[in-house]
């Protein structure tokens, strides 16, 4: 298990989601990915996608204006 940083700052919807999915494809089941986004819509859009597809949102917080979402690949 490893945690990979997906730095998607300074792009716009659906850039952060697509960058997460791109990295998700390369990750192994059980791996964690931490997405960094400055796109405000990501705060609702990415959790919605995680929920729909069936991965697990482990943590969500904002730090210095940057949203951090920690996702576990479950399948």
């Amino acid at each position, binding site marked *: 298990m490893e945690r990979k940083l997906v730095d998607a700052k300074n792009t716009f*919807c*659906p*850039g952060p989601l*697509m960058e997460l*999915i791109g990295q998700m494809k390369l990750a192994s089941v059980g791996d964690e990915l931490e997405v960094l986004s400055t796109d405000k819509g990501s705060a609702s859009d990415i959790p919605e996608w995680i929920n729909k597809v069936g991965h697990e949102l482990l943590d969500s917080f904002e730090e210095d204006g940057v949203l951090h979402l920690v996702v576990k690949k479950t399948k």
Partner: protein
Amino acid sequence: MSTGKISVMVTSNKREQLQMAAMVASVGAVSGNDVSVFLSMNSLNFFLKDSSEQATPQGSMGQLIEEKNVPDFKDLFQQAVEYGDAKIFPCSMAVDILGIGQDDLETYISEPLGLTSFLSDASEGQVWHF
């Protein structure tokens, strides 16, 4: 995961229209929907390999999209295919009019499709036009 059918017809050469079509196709596809995109009229030129065609902004939003770091619409269409198994079909009429072959189009573009087949395919689910 719930799935649905989404058919997207794209005929515009305007930046905003192409952007929105690419967003619907990519987000729809990665969310588990069965997405088919039909490229016709002024949209097909952009999908020629090494196309230098620039999408013209329709209004102020299109200009801002050009200036800011918004994902490129062609990258989004490609991601729709690669991440979400979307199918992107060139309209067979547009292919004939342009006098192009499959090899002239980007590799993620499927074989040409006729309008009759697209309409039949689109008879269920959501249909979007840009």
